[in-house]
């Protein structure tokens, strides 16, 4: 029989056709409902400018009639341009001034005391929670990129935006959002730890990249480049082997590769992508044993480190990650695709 009915309806597959008949009645067929009005940005700007002018006049009048006082928040008031925030559990410090909320402008740091958190709105693409004891600076915000700098502490971000629009720098690496939710921490020893709870994040430092998918965590040491992602549920022994390899202990690679299981394919892929040419055959052999590689991905190309082949293997291993919801990782099904998630 020729054709592939499941793919393009060529040929025949009675069981697929039967399921289509069974389930086709649930297909969506409703027309588009009336659309809400869009905000008229020009009008909003004009109105906003008027409000700002009036507010400024009032502020000047108040300032002119008041005596000496403590300085006002440095640009963190509601009229500033930037990311809106509110603190919980007490006041945060914006630009060095204690405040329960306002707007974080570009170039200004938001600091949370140990027992205070802050909710920060990331333009119109998402939000983040800044944990207690953290310092976050808005480096830039614009049509092409929203960029923050986490000096220390921890944040949890959830973003719905095109890839690479949301970026967070830490002292050790840069987290580039590819459509996801994640936790990012700058540890007390300066290492950066990233745990992805939805979608994909690219962690970059220098020329080295780590591709971190849902349910994986990666630790980066400043000056060394991103480490290798490890499944959140990986055994401590396996994680320790990964840490040794990341630390430059080449003797740990062989036992790591041998110990890798079905849930560790993304770890192996990152080692394949970032490793030396001499290391790739053994890594690929283990990957092949764990995951049925499509014929069109040639072993020679992968061992040679051809970027298209490496990226193609990543896409196959993570196929569905772009579709994966942002629910917490679930335990593996016994017959789950071994190449997807632990």
């Amino acid at each position: 029989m020729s054709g592939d009915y499941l793919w393009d309806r060529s040929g025949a597959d009675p069981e697929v056709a039967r399921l289509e008949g069974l389930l086709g009645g649930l297909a969506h067929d409703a027309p588009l409902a009336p659309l809400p009005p869009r905000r008229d940005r020009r009008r909003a700007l004009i109105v906003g400018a008027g409000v700002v002018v009036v507010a400024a006049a009032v502020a000047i009048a108040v300032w002119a009639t008041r005596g000496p006082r403590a300085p006002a928040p440095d640009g963190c008031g509601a009229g500033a341009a930037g990311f809106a925030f509110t603190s919980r559990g007490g006041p945060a410090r914006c630009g060095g001034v204690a405040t329960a909320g306002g707007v974080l402008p570009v170039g200004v740091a938001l600091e949370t005391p140990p027992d205070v958190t802050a909710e920060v709105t990331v333009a119109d693409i998402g939000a983040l929670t800044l944990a207690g004891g953290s310092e976050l600076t808005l480096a830039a915000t614009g049509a092409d990129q929203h960029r923050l700098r986490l000096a220390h502490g921890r944040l949890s971000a959830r973003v719905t935006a095109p890839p690479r629009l949301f970026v967070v720098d830490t002292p050790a690496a840069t987290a580039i959002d590819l459509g996801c939710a994640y936790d990012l921490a700058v540890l007390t020893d300066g290492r950066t730890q990233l745990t992805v709870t939805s979608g994909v994040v690219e962690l970059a430092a220098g020329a080295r990249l780590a591709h971190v998918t849902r349910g994986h965590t990666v630790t980066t040491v400043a000056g060394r480049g991103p480490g290798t992602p490890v499944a959140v549920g990986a055994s401590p022994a396996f994680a320790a082997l990964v840490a040794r390899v990341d630390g430059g202990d080449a003797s740990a690679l062989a036992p790591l590769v041998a110990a890798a299981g079905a849930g560790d394919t993304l770890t192996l892929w990152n080692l394949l992508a970032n490793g030396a040419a001499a290391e790739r055959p053994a890594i690929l052999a283990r990957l092949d044993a764990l995951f049925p590689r499509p014929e069109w991905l040639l072993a020679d190309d992968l061992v040679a480190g051809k970027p298209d082949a490496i990226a193609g293997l990543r896409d196959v291993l993570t196929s569905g990650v772009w579709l994966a919801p942002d629910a917490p990782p679930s335990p593996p099904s016994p017959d789950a695709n071994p190449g997807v998630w632990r």
Partner: protein
Amino acid sequence: MAASVVDATIAELVVAAQAGNHAAFTTLYARFHRAVHAVALARVGAADAADVVQDVFARAWTRLGSVREPAAFAGWLMTMARHRAIDRARARGGGDAPAQEVAVAPAPTAEAAAALRAIRALPEAYRETLLMRLVEGLSGPEIAERTGLTPESVRVNLHRGMKLLRDRLAPPATKGGTP
């Protein structure tokens, strides 16, 4: 821009819709509403899924200006659909197997409901793709276009997902009997 919205590419439609062209946005709806519905149906019941579709497109209309790269529209829309469906599922109590499934019209047969449950129990990588194919009637190439996935990834998802589904729907006596 193509001569009409019917002939336009997705990127052209996105650019036109960003400029306020309703016809372009309606055409985007026509191309994507079934894929969005499948994404929702993977997480909520059919009645809620229909609401999620309208909610997603209403939000897309008001937020389309944030899409800087028109070619990324498909991924952006699917991500939004996922988030809205998850929010709806959480509002319903967080269940991943919608209880009201059998109450929707047209009411699925017991066999259809069983098939739907079996699809929902599949690994996440396959769930949405199979729903797009078997419920919404999209072909593999259409799914790739609607989701932004590569055709190779869609093909992998379809075939592996279908293999698992066949195994799970097979009568107990035949399970494990195929090579």
